């Protein structure tokens, strides 16, 4: 059997990195006093998957170290020993070494053998068992896939073993049967649980048929894996023992790991997609040039040309749409990691928390997704740790015992707003002010709430009475803000004492597609995000009132400020009389007002391009877009117009 194994290296590296990240994350949140069996299992599985893969590909250094880590973890999850803070730290350090080794293998540079040896001996010491022999065995023969999982035999009734990568034991529920007698006491999967879950990479790594290792000598149950994995499945399936399962839990966990997705997607360098987006833009322009020329052609050929051009137009539009959508990913993938996190954390903190996810289908640029994960995780953890009270307190406060955290996303006003809202205790104004003072900040007692909340983003600002290992409000909030600002976003806080608090991350729509209304002012076209538009109409003279030098609109018993766009945008030859033009009523997150434009041109989807890339941020403008004729149209930022227009008016009044 000759398989070009190199082609799988990339996948292995990426998956191993993900596993390492998972392990790290889990270990970071690991509570040594109350070890979470599920966490331990996850960490063990991650180590095991890396070991499996590295064994197959012959990355022996990785195998050696992960094997020892795995031994330690296996003992820990079988309660043979309990992890101490030291051993957790040691594991974390080992993960760092693994990362180093991984990138060494990836780049083909020498692996840090000395450090690995060091870690191995440290780990072995901490296990307190001389494992030297077995570990050297393993590294020789490329390791045994099943060494610690002899009980897999009864497990496999899955039909989805050909799924992705190394998600080895994703959901293994505890099995209480005869297998416990076996040496390793692994917790095999129950067949029932497995049927619930189809995204399972059980045996795929075995396609390379290497894993029949020496371990079978130690662990006599394993050798049944000698046969080809598929046959093995069939053979063993009927004798699946009855097991005690936790199917409910398995199901709950499932959405947290939508692994099936990988099977139908490929990883593409985003710069390639960017280049494609730009090229398609060019294509659209060329096509519209062509149709203009086509109109000049006369005679018999004109009709045929026109038909061809129409066809081209349709095709280009479709290409454009699909290319645009390539960079955009729904937030679901990000949000789906939170149910797990919330559950684990709530359990750890003895709190009851429900997580509600809204608007997961909101699409956001891929590059933003990657950068939003950490701040989001931090905020959700904060909400659970500090926001939601313990059940007794909640009941005492007359609130339902179970707290709720709402994770929401929506596109609004040229922004994507991601909200983390809890119904907990709310921010403690007094404590924040006191902390600010003790940090040497001068703050007034009557500081508006909004400004008080912003204080928690100061570096070194933790108001948590006891800093837990989970989070301390303020610890890292400055990092959260910096991360968000680095992608051009901002964060706002709303909080009511006793009722809860909400953190709202406003992200720019870089490269996002927005539904816009194109309006003309003079000879310029502007795009107003459709989401902000309430209605548009031609006002009658009676609806326009003057207030000083400014016009206001009087509609349905309400007065609306009127912003003439020609004035704000400094456009010549525009319609100046409101009754001759069109008024578009807008609703921004801050204010409601009308803008005066010459005419409505039409509604279309536009791609937001950043002005900042080659220029700078401009007040009142969210970005630019390229119209079908290749010209640039500016996209209006309704929030910014509302704030800057007022301040400009004030300035004029004062001068």
């Amino acid at each position, binding site marked *: 059997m000759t398989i070009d194994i190199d082609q799988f290296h990339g996948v292995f590296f990426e998956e191993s990195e993900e596993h390492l990240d998972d392990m790290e994350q889990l270990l970071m949140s690991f509570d040594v006093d109350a070890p979470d069996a599920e966490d331990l299992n996850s960490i063990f599985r991650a180590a095991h998957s890396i070991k499996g893969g590295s064994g197959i590909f012959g990355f022996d250094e990785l195998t050696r170290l992960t094997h020892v880590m795995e031994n330690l973890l296996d003992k820990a999850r079988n309660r043979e020993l309990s992890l101490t803070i030291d051993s957790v730290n040691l594991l974390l350090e080992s993960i760092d070494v693994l990362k180093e080794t991984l990138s060494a293998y990836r780049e083909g540079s020498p692996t840090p053998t000395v450090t690995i040896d060091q870690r191995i001996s440290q780990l072995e010491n901490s296990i307190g068992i001389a494992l030297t022999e077995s570990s050297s065995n393993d590294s020789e023969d490329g390791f045994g896939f099943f060494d610690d999982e002899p009980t897999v035999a009864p497990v496999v009734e899955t039909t989805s073993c050909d799924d992705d990568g190394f998600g080895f034991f994703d959901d293994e529920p505890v099995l209480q049967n005869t297998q416990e007698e076996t040496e390793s006491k692994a917790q095999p999967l129950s067949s029932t649980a497995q049927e619930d879950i189809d995204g399972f990479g059980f045996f795929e790594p075995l396609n390379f048929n290497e894993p029949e290792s020496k371990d079978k000598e130690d662990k006599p149950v394993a050798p049944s894996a000698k046969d080809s994995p598929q046959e093995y499945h069939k053979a063993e399936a009927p004798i699946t023992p009855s097991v005690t399962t936790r199917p409910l839990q398995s199901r709950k966990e499932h959405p947290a790991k939508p692994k099936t997705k990988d099977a139908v997607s490929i990883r593409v360098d985003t710069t390639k997609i960017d280049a494609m*987006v*730009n*090229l398609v*833009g*060019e294509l659209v*322009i060329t096509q519209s040039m062509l149709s203009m020329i086509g109109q000049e052609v006369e005679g018999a050929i004109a009709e045929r040309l026109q038909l061809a051009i129409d066809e081209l137009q349709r095709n280009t539009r479709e290409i454009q749409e699909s290319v645009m959508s390539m960079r955009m990913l729904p937030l679901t993938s990000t949000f789906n990691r939170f149910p797990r996190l919330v559950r684990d954390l709530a359990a750890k903190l003895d709190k009851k928390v429900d997580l509600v996810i809204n608007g997961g289908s909101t699409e956001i640029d891929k590059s933003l997704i990657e950068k939003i994960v950490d701040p989001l995780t931090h905020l959700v953890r904060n909400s659970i740790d500090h926001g939601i009270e313990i059940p007794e307190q909640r009941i005492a406060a007359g609130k339902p015992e179970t707290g709720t955290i709402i994770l929401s996303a929506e596109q609004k006003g040229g922004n994507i707003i991601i909200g983390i809202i809890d119904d907990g205790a709310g921010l403690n104004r007094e404590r924040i002010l006191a902390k600010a003072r003790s940090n040497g900040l001068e703050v007034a007692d009557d500081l508006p709430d909004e400004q008080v909340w912003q204080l928690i983003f100061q570096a070194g600002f933790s108001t948590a009475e006891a800093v837990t290992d989970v989070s301390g409000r303020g610890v890292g909030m400055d990092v959260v803000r910096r991360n968000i600002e680095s992608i051009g976003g901002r964060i706002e806080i709303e909080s009511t004492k006793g009722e809860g608090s909400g953190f709202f991350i406003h992200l720019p729509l870089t490269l996002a597609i927005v539904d816009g209304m194109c309006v003309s002012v003079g000879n*310029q076209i502007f795009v107003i995000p459709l989401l902000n538009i309430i209605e548009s109409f031609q006002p009658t003279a009676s609806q326009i009132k003057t207030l000083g030098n400014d016009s206001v609109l009087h509609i349905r018993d309400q007065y609306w400020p009127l912003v003439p766009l020609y004035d*704000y*945008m*400094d*456009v010549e030859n525009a319609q100046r009389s409101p009754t001759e033009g069109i008024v578009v009523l807008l609703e921004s997150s801050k204010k409601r007002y009308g803008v005066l434009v010459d005419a409505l041109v039409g509604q279309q989807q536009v791609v937001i*391009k*950043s*002005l*900042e*890339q*080659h*220029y*700078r*941020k*401009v*007040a*009142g*403008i969210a970005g*630019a877009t*390229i119209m079908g004729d*290749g*010209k*640039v*149209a*500016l996209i209006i930022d309704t929030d910014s117009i509302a704030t800057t227009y007022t301040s400009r008016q004030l300035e004029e009044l004062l001068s």
Partner: protein
Amino acid sequence: MSDAVLQQTVIGGEEKEYLSFVLGDEHYALDITTVKEIRGYEQVTKIANAPAFIKGVINLRGDIVPIVDLRIKFNVGEATYNEFTIVIMLNIQERIVGIVVDGVSDVIRLADETILAPPEFGVAFDSRYLQGLADVEDTMVILVNIERLVTSEELGLVAPETVTEDA
């Protein structure tokens, strides 16, 4: 002989190419490695509340690129726009900027030692943005430090916090 060889290598090593252009009656030149391309002037989309010398933005194959008219900024020549008006597209610090000039004349090769220090005043450009002066076929050519000019706060093309002095 060894002297001659030495001199030659020095000149050969230090010689750089410059693109010369015309603003009004004066001849200027800039480091050709910053030039992305040369285009005719096309209709721009005006940007509100920008200084007059920022004509607006254009679509350069999908990039929204600002266009600066140096004639307005430095008050040289007349800011007219016709089919002969030229825009030099510059690629500076991963940004693209177009500058409007009256014409592009030539690519010139200059050795560093033939470049003379600029006068403290007397040319339209602030001496901070000048690299020096050179004589090319009896014409004085003003070498512009275009990178410093484009990233300067004065031009306001770059948001202040990202302006790097001496970039």
